[in-house]
């Protein structure tokens, strides 16, 4: 039995109430984790003493997971380059892009030791030689462009939403339509172009941040390109999950759009498979440096071998490619959905392995780091940030005009 309750003119089912409460509890758990990380009042468990282990840990991997997503590129395909089959999902993608970058920046903002000083950094005390400075700058710019683009893209729908039954939705619409604007879609297209360029620069900048270092597993000129490719994979897979879940909740079907995403995801995964194989072969080749081979061995035979072979290669690449490429499975939305979930799991482990596994050979104060050990507070914070992203997406979806004109009966 599904009981319904009225909230601001919206039907809120019990399942949604459970979802909201669970999300808030998990966000609270995350907040507690972050608080503990910054204050360490109870038990500074040894591996967490950062310099003893790895300087960049789970939260940095989570940051990379959030911000390296190619939503903007897919939006640009639909909005700028006229791939009309993607138009019904543009709103979803814009929202996902904003939320992932927002939560990503929050993650890294709270991961650094002196969060309050980052504000000073933003007002001028910066080093233009530092890739990290440019990375943050481009992500902040991208976020601003995305917010403006989304506002312009939704403007006409917001005007209509001013007549909504829901008080909350009406209020949001009234506030967001205070500035008057005409031809908003055209402006959105122009800003969208700037946003996609900024997005690609920001993502490749993050790749450069890792590749400029003296660690053999990271170092190389192709890492920025690899990041852009993996952003396409991650963004497409998350987009499929978001669209399918939203359609399931609303009884819509955006089959054609999901099928287009399926092609993009399948192609990107295939390229990534080749890229991954050659990356490892070149780094482990007998003529490579000894350190380069040792760094690769960590993933092929060492402490990260299970993560690499099972999560990254099998779950993240081979099974999704099979599910997406075989027409019998690929035409079925459920299979595409499963393939996307597997891909996202693979991507998460790829980010985690790249960030932490890349530092395995790093010598910290003369100590060799054998393997990564996640601290409970880090795990709590990670769960919190992931829940916050999902919860924020849900709230925005509820309050913004996310409806699309799609036939309820559109089917394969």
């Amino acid at each position: 039995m599904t009981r319904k309750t009225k909230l601001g003119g919206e039907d809120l089912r019990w399942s949604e109430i459970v979802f909201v409460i669970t999300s808030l509890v998990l966000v609270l758990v995350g907040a507690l984790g972050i608080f503990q990380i910054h204050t360490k009042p109870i038990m500074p468990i040894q591996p967490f003493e950062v310099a003893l282990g790895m300087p960049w840990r789970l939260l940095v991997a989570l940051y990379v997971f959030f911000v390296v997503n190619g939503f903007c590129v897919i939006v640009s395909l639909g909005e700028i380059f006229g791939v009309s089959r993607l138009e019904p999902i543009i709103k979803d993608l814009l929202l996902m892009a904003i939320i992932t970058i927002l939560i990503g920046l929050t993650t890294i903002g709270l991961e650094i030791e002196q969060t309050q000083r980052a504000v000073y950094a933003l007002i001028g005390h910066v080093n233009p030689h530092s890739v990290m400075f440019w990375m943050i700058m481009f992500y902040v710019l991208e976020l601003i462009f995305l917010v403006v683009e989304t506002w312009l893209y939704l403007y006409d729908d917001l005007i209509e939403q001013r007549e909504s039954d829901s008080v909350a939705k009406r209020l949001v619409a009234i506030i967001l339509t205070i500035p008057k604007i005409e031809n908003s879609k055209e402006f959105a297209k122009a800003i969208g172009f700037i946003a996609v360029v900024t997005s690609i620069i920001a993502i490749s900048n993050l790749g450069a941040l890792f590749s400029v270092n003296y660690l053999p597993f990271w170092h190389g000129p192709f890492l920025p390109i690899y990041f852009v490719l993996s952003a396409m994979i991650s963004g497409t897979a998350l987009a499929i999950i978001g669209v399918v879940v939203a359609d399931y909740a609303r009884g819509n079907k955006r089959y054609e759009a999901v099928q287009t995403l399926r092609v993009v995801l399948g192609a990107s995964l295939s390229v990534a498979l080749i890229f991954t194989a050659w990356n490892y072969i070149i780094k482990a080749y007998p003529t490579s440096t000894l350190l380069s081979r040792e760094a690769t061995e960590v993933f092929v035979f060492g402490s990260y071998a299970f993560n690499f072979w099972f999560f990254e290669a099998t779950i993240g690449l081979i099974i999704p490619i099979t599910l997406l490429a075989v027409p019998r499975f690929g035409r079925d939305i459920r299979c595409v959905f499963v393939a996307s979930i597997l891909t996202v799991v693979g991507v998460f482990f790829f980010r985690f392995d790249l960030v932490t596994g890349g530092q395995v050979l790093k010598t910290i104060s003369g100590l060799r780091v054998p393997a990564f050990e996640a601290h409970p507070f880090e795990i709590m914070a990670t769960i919190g940030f992931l829940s916050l992203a999902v919860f924020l997406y849900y709230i925005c979806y509820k309050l913004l005009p996310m409806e699309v004109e799609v036939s309820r009966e559109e089917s394969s």
Partner: protein
Amino acid sequence: MVIDVNKCIGCGNCVIACKIENDIPLEIPLSRTWVEGYSVEETVPKAKVQKVVMNTDKNPFLDVEWKYSKVFFVPRLCNHCANAPCVNVCPVYARFYTKEGIVLVDKNTCIGCKYCIVACPYGATFLHPEQGVTDKCTFCYHRIKNGLEPACVLACPTHARIFGDVNDENSEVYKILKEKKVTVLKPEEGTFPRVFYIGLDSRFVE
């Protein structure tokens, strides 16, 4: 700074003196300077190496059973590179060169992003467990500005560490660099370290 590996006996006085002078907790295995003890047996193609690190007030060299007969100690610290990766990567200019060429940390500016820890090829930077900012050797800048020697140099009983101005023709460091064969750690990284070693077999030192 010049370090004569042949003279280092692994007593660890330098580590303890540095920790006390610069307020680094004695018991935590983080230090601005540390001593690596190596025991090596030359085999083909790769030598067998045993490595032990001293970076607290406990000296592990007193208890360790060395596996191989060739034993030597390598004191380590920030190399104060002329092309320092930590200075290049710091997003907020918390790392800088003094006019003497020493690399320092501005602890009031450091945001604790830890990029310098990741970028340093020598593992010479760490996060101060109490201050929440990165920390590293300053050549005891507060001492040398007042005409004193760095604490580690002063504490070394065998005069294995020699500190001075490379450009001063009257300094001991100048004379050593002019007359003796010295080497630096990881010259291939292009960081141009300013800590020079005499008698170092750099094959074994990471």
